[in-house]
């Protein structure tokens, strides 16, 4: 189970990479494994405002479906169009080419996030 040290995590198994006022979202290795083979990712529209904790995307496997919640607030600036043809990128490379959206963030919600160490403990519990 991979949990990179340079990312922050939520209890709903999303990760976020915050660089200045830019943030990238995705789902964790644990989440993709629990869902199984991802067959579809429903992406939001660029320009949509999302609040921390709000569902902004949907990931689907054959027999399960899961809302994906925003770790921090902001406005969506880019979506990962590659997922339309290759949803399995979320399975094979959840922290890299399987990213879901990029947003311009105001940072709201970041105080709730977990570090790698805290997320590791959270998963063990």
């Amino acid at each position, binding site marked *: 189970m991979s949990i990179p040290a340079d990312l922050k995590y939520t209890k709903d198994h999303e990760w976020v990479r915050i660089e200045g006022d830019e943030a990238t979202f995705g789902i964790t290795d644990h989440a993709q494994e629990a869902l199984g083979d991802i067959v579809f990712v429903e992406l939001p529209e660029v320009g949509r405002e999302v609040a921390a904790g709000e569902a902004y995307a949907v990931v689907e496997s054959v027999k399960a479906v899961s809302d994906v919640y925003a770790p921090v607030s902001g406005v969506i600036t880019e979506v990962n169009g590659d997922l339309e043809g290759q*949803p399995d990128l979320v399975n094979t490379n959840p922290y890299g080419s399987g990213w879901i959206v990029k947003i311009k963030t105001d940072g709201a919600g970041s105080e709730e996030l977990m570090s790698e160490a805290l997320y590791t403990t959270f998963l063990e519990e």
Partner: protein
Amino acid sequence: MSASKYSAVSGIQHEEPLVFEHAHEAPESISLPGVVGDVYAGLNTFARKKDAGIPGLSEPETVRHFVRLSQWNHSIETGFYPLGSCTMKYNPRVNEQVARLPGLAFIHPEQPEDSVQGVLALLYELQGWLGEISGLPHVTLQPAAGAHGELAGLMMIRACLDARGDQHRKKVLVPDSAHGTNPASAALCGMHTVELKSGADGRIDLEELKKHLDVDTAALMMTNPNTAGAFESDIKEICQLVHDAGALVYGDGANLNALVGVARPGDMGIDCLHINVHKTFSTPHGGGGPGAGPVAVNETLAPYLPVPRIVKNAETYSLETESDTSVGAMLGVIGQTGVLMRANAYISAFGKNHLHNIAQDAVLNANYMLARLKDAYHVPFKGLCKHECLLTDEYQNKHGVKTLDIAKQLIDLGFHPMTVYFPLIVHGAMLIEPTETESRETLDAFCDALLEIAAQCEAGDTEVLHNAPVRSIRRRLDETKAARNPVLVWP
């Protein structure tokens, strides 16, 4: 594996291409009746620019094509179908015969009422019987399926609450063991659902129910017996609590087979119940439908029944199409009449003197299987079951074998698997419903198969289970591929 013990053997099976792949030109069209002449003036200007691309086959080829396809199916006529919550029972042939009588199959729904008195009489009779069996005397036959009945029932509940000035009541309580149609139907009716966590015995937890019942609650939707096959013994208290809170009780009748002729939901306090006639009253499933989902209600909800309604005045029957209080029409026609005819015939065959034998033998069969299987398979909720029994793969999991593997191995032994991974309240669910029309010989063979699989797990002989099925016309199908790149039509 002792192949001789089970019915499945290899025989002549044919591969069959798609109709689109039959590589010859369409033959001369079959002879057709009708007026040969000019089409309506001006219609030719709207004529298709190109053919649709429907390949025609001659009659003998058409028959062979579809007969070969039919031979790739498991069916109730060829084998056991122990699908929990689906009630796959024998479909009597006389029911097929009578439903096809020209005087029933070849009548137009807008014929004058004096020309359809026979069919109206049969429908009216069925309405009365369903009211009698459910203990809820007012019945609509219109809903086309169980989920459609749920929607009709919730619409009536909505209308009743609105008439009471309770427009704000929009919360529907649904146990976590419920069928997925329950929350979906509530959403379609403009209401939202709150899930009730089941108690340790798989039943509704009264404390949990009390906690969620409030002034915003519109209804409780419950299935009794529930989807774990257990009777909700607190039914009287449950209905009382819901009614005291100013809400109504919706009964999902999917499991009515456990109660027919033995006990009545209406007597227990249920206000409204849909009846899946394709389950309880043996209308054929047809590979997914058609079904029918009549709804029976008590006096409280009767004013809101959909239209048209079949009414009897002296000796004549007619359709009542207007009512100020009705929720309106659920369907463009009166109902799935052909399906309802078969239900009438099934009830006719049992009559008052034998209807209870349906529930008795169904419950007997389920408990017999439970008794035979309870040591080899984990039983999450102890005690008597009703018409279906719930097991899990907990013991087999230790050997790396999952419910899915067990299900697929059953196929190689000649059985349709039980319902798997439902209800959601237990891990690795296997829900077995034998129905009243299966013989002890069949039940024993199925139990033997499951016991043999359990023994294989204990012996560590699990390779064969992971590979199953190997005897079916196709092996495990790649559902991920189908969903990732959906191909729903032949290019």
